[in-house]
């Protein structure tokens, strides 16, 4: 493990029922960088994020986060590690019974002993950073999808974590919301000296802000490189994914017997 790697994934295998999602997966994520984990749907991107966050444990191998084996930690130690990281869930995962302000204040109330004024100012500054100071009294149901994602981002950085995990931050966003999120992820990463890991299949948006890209497929890392190198790659699987070709090494058809065998009674 290199000294500047915040996450190190070593020979990880993970199965759902009998299906291997990962088989001997190896990769490392450098401190202070924005790393995009990309791959086709079903390649295990979100599963990898959950493994890193300790919500799932690998069946084989180990994931070292802040130089600790995440699966070997007890709940208290895991919570201490989690206090050093933030997660932006795909759905935003805002608490629907709390206002925008209270959602952002939630981790601060749980883990920090701040005075009412300190808490208020801290929450307001985080909301200001995502441009939603004026929406502090709204409930999550009153927010648009893009706004909810930004509130979730403010909540994820409220504890000023060292690492932040983004699960599909651009999914389902309009072009303006997407650009806003892109800028926020980039700015927060440099302003707060964060390490960001974002799982995405929005190639252009993720590549535009990522320092390195990990491309997953067939249960392993297909390639780990800079976005520019990926664009120039001649690897057929990488080319197919980057250029969005429907069929290729990653098949268009789900595994099935030949069509001729399946058609009935002479119809073709």
């Amino acid at each position: 493990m290199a000294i500047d790697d915040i996450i190190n994934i070593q020979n990880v295998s993970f199965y759902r029922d009998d299906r291997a999602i990962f088989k001997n997966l190896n990769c490392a994520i450098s401190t202070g960088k924005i790393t995009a984990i990309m791959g086709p749907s079903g390649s295990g991107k979100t599963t990898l994020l959950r493994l890193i966050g300790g919500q799932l444990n690998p069946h084989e191998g180990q994931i070292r986060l802040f130089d600790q084996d995440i699966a070997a930690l007890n709940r208290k130690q895991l919570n201490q590690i989690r206090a050093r990281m933030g997660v932006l869930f795909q759905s935003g995962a805002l608490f629907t019974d709390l206002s925008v302000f209270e959602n952002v204040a939630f981790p601060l109330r749980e883990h920090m002993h701040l005075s009412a004024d300190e808490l208020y100012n801290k929450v307001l500054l985080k909301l200001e950073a995502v441009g939603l100071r004026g929406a502090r009294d709204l409930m999550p149901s009153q927010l648009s999808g893009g706004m909810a994602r930004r509130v979730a981002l403010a909540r994820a950085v409220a504890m000023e974590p060292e690492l932040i995990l983004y699960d599909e931050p651009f999914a389902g966003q309009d072009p303006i919301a997407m650009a806003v999120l892109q800028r926020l992820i980039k700015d927060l990463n440099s302003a707060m000296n964060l390490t960001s890991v974002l799982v995405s299949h929005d190639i252009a948006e993720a590549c535009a802000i990522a320092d390195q890209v990990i491309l997953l497929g067939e249960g392993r890392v297909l390639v780990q490189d800079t976005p520019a190198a990926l664009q120039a790659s001649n690897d057929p699987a990488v080319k197919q994914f980057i250029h969005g070709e429907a069929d290729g090494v990653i098949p268009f058809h789900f595994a099935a017997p030949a069509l001729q065998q399946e058609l009935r009674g002479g119809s073709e």
Partner: protein
Amino acid sequence: MINLIADLGSGLLGKLVRIGQALLMLLQATIVRPKASSFSRLIQQLYVVGVQSLIIILVSALFIGMVLGLQGYTLLAAYGTEQAVGQMVALTLVRELSPVVAALLFAGRAGSALTAEIGLMKATEQLASLEMFGVDPLHRIVAPRFWAGIISLPLLVAIFSLVGIYGGHLVAVDWLGVYSGSYWGNMQQAVDFNGDVLNGMVKALVFAFLISWTAVYQGYTCVPTSQGISAATTRTVVYSSLAILGFDFILTALMFGGTV
């Protein structure tokens, strides 16, 4: 034949495993030192689970009491003992109908809502989000809802009995002309506080445990999809209702079996 026995055995073992898991979940959720903030969350859930179930309990109790008054009067008048309608209404309610009907209504109204709410929290990653903030969802989400159910149902059952007895009074005394003194006097003489009222409340407590436990477990372990939440909500109502009726027979046999 062997396969059938094997399937039956593995099905039974699976059920036992799930009961064990549910029990473990409940212990993890409830055996914890409460914080000051847990109290405010409990109050909030008491409102949602208990106060918001009041209307259906009040209306049902009134009508059931009125029906009991009417049926009781018709039946007893044939033997010239219509003055005993008060004791009949009260005993039927406090021993059986209040705990059972209130519990069935509670399972449909509050139990299903608890399952759907927790299931939806799971589907929208709110539970995962709590975990990532280092907050145990069992303590934060499951425990206050479970305790709110345990506290609310016995109170609702007591209210059900009171309103039901008043409903019986409306029909038997105010409408059909039974003497008010007989209605209350016979009731006072026939209803034993320990034997009838307290036993009814013990039933309510057992039913509250069964409903709350089923509801939070089904919500917490549901498949986080719309179909999964719908199935879990249905299971809460079906399992709770069957458990209420089954345990009602057992409890009745234990409490009143010797006096028959």
